[in-house]
């Protein structure tokens, strides 16, 4: 009887462990399978890429960064790992406490709640951010990421984290950058393997190719093995350096408006009204083209057929399924396709709501008009980089800011009538 009871106890213990399931498994970073499959990364290379990434970045419970990244290991440690608080009241595992259920362990925007949100949570892995103060192609500054955490993103599922202590927000900013740099490195490694590591002809002792029974040379896979291949080591550190340089250059990419063009706080109502009128002309004109997507009423009901970067990656992948390939490739592609969320089009912002995802200050809207919104169809009207040619002057862009900010306050009973488009075709001669 006692004997049986002992086994019963053991069984109960086991049952508890099994039921606990999810919590007892240490999470791992998973490979970006859309990239891997698109770049024909075989199983052996997938494992090797994961090993290199594991060496360079550690795991969700034990993050690690090479000094070259400039990231702060101590801050990452506080943000990573399981959520718990020590006796002194210090919170650990901040990312899993606050972020993971939407943004996912990999930072791929695929946490358990992600599927139910519109827009989908940001996938950090490409390192592209929408709400920032820099040129379209530049990375966001720490301050930009900080601002998004403090303000949240109005009109989306992203809440404000302004109640967190400053040090916790800083740790989370660091961790988001870590996930981005890791994600960029992951894609770069997948492409490096595809581009530079190829099959080699197997050679015998005399250096002659070994032939198979059909007289074809036997091919050997060149493994990704930076531990034993100095050239690979050098290439990997060079790729990492390029990625990190992009982040380090963010502060040089900040768009600083010309002091004398910034609208003055002491403008008269008449001056503001005149600016709104000029902005409206530009909004509907063929130079700024805002109307094409935001629609003649500003409701965001113009061109709605395009996608943002993140959805387009999935769309292109899904479209590749229609091409005939080998059954083996087809099967892997179908398996990956089944994990993707439905592709959503980028719907231009409804400018009459008065909700501005990237912030409601004049400068926030100015940055969007100047640089466009990275990763989305929204183009910029200012120069693409310092010294490049812009489409509009800064004064004109400030006028559009003024018009956009006035749109929510136009009385709904007096809808603006759309101006006729394209009345004066330009000469096609020459």
């Amino acid at each position, binding site marked *: 009887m006692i004997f049986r009871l002992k086994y019963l106890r053991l069984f109960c213990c086991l049952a508890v462990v099994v039921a606990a*399931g*999810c919590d007892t498994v240490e999470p791992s*970073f*998973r*490979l970006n399978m859309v990239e891997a499959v698109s*770049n*024909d990364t075989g*199983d052996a290379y*997938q494992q*090797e890429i*994961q*090993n290199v*990434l*594991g*060496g*360079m970045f*550690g*795991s969700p419970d034990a993050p690690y960064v*090479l000094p070259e990244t400039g990231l702060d290991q101590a801050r990452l440690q506080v943000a990573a790992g399981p959520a718990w608080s020590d006796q002194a009241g210090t919170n650990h595992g901040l990312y899993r406490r606050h972020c993971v259920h939407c943004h996912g362990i990999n930072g791929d925007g695929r946490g358990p709640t992600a599927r139910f949100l519109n827009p989908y949570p940001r996938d950090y892995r490409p390192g592209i951010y929408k709400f920032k103060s820099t040129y*379209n*192609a530049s990375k966001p500054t720490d301050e930009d990421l900080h601002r998004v955490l403090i303000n949240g993103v109005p009109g989306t599922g992203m809440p404000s984290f302004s109640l967190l202590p400053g040090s916790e927000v800083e740790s989370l900013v660091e961790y988001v950058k870590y996930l981005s740099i890791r994600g960029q490195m992951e894609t770069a490694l997948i*492409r490096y393997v*595809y*581009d530079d590591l*190829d*099959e080699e002809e197997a050679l015998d002792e005399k250096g002659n190719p070994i032939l198979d029974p059909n007289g074809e040379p036997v091919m050997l896979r060149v493994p990704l093995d*930076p*531990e034993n291949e*100095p*050239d690979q*080591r*050098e290439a990997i*550190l*060079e790729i990492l350096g390029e990625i990190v340089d992009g982040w380090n250059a963010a502060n040089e990419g900040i768009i600083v408006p010309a002091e004398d063009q910034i609208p003055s706080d002491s403008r008269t109502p008449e001056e503001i009204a005149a600016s709104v009128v000029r902005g409206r002309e530009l909004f509907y004109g*063929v*130079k*700024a*083209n805002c109307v*094409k*997507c935001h629609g003649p009423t500003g409701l965001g009901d113009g*061109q709605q057929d*395009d996608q943002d*970067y993140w959805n387009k990656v999935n769309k292109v992948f899904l479209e590749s399924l229609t*091409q*005939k390939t080998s059954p083996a490739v087809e099967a892997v592609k179908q*398996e*990956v396709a*089944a*994990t993707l969320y439905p592709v959503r089009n980028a719907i231009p912002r409804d400018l009459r709501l008065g909700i501005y995802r990237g912030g409601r200050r004049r400068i926030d809207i100015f940055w969007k008009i100047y640089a466009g919104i*990275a990763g989305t*169809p929204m*183009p*910029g*009207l200012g120069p693409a980089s310092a010294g*490049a040619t812009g*489409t509009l002057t800064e004064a004109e862009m400030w006028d559009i800011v003024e018009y956009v900010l006035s749109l929510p306050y136009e009385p709904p009973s007096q809808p603006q009538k759309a101006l006729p*488009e*394209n009345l004066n075709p*330009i000469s*096609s001669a020459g």
Partner: protein
Amino acid sequence: MSPGCRQSELGPIAEAQAAANVRASLSEGAEAGTGSSAAGSTGTGWATLKGRFVFDGTPPQMQPYNVNKDLATCTINGKAPLQQTLLVDSATGGLANVAIYIRKASRVHVSLESPPSRESLFDQKECIFLSHVYPLTLGQTMQIKNSDNVGHNTNIEGKNSFNQTIPAGELIDFTPQKEEAVPVSVRCSIHPWMLAYFLPRKNGYYAISKPDGSFEIANVPAGEELEMQVWHESAVGPGHALVLDTPDAKKLKWSKKGRFKIKLGEDEVKDMEITVPAAALGG
């Protein structure tokens, strides 16, 4: 892992010991590296690689673009223009818009060291990019032109990320800085059917096949092995690499990545006819 805990998780995870070894070796830095793995130059003199891509099969009928905005400008006599995803010359069977280029050149002919001209025009008219596959030598400034009477924006993906409004009838300069290994897409968000491909390269060793399928790359390094990359937007290989397994391609050891190697003699003019079966383009 018990089912239901997570969404389907594909692919391997890192092996602890292997990761630790990589970490140790990367932390030591790259001092042991022997420099770039690009092939050192071994030959002398120059040669010309030319030829023609010929489509083998029944060319597919191109569908009209889904034109849903600015119909007056973007249609011709009320009809939407046809897509350009696979253009075959009806007379000669030539396959247009194949990109062929040297992956890594060990040396560059003096005539190709600097771009042929400082500026290069990238135009759009009737809501079509006029260069469907558009190559550029780094150092050149891309003059993005809008010859329509409606506004466009030019959205270039990849390492030279760019997205700016190009007003009706105007021209905006853009100077890309980074090379791409394969062409990247160029689109217009206002007219999302508009599509072109952009191939910025460090040197002029590239060609895009003409409507009759012909191409020519002059002054390539002779006496050493050249690795060529071949790409077509409809090709089914990874990243749209054009993968061929015809007998001729087998002789060239055409790879699964759309690459082949060739060695030319000094002053040789190599003329190749490359047959592209419909299956290589998803047909």
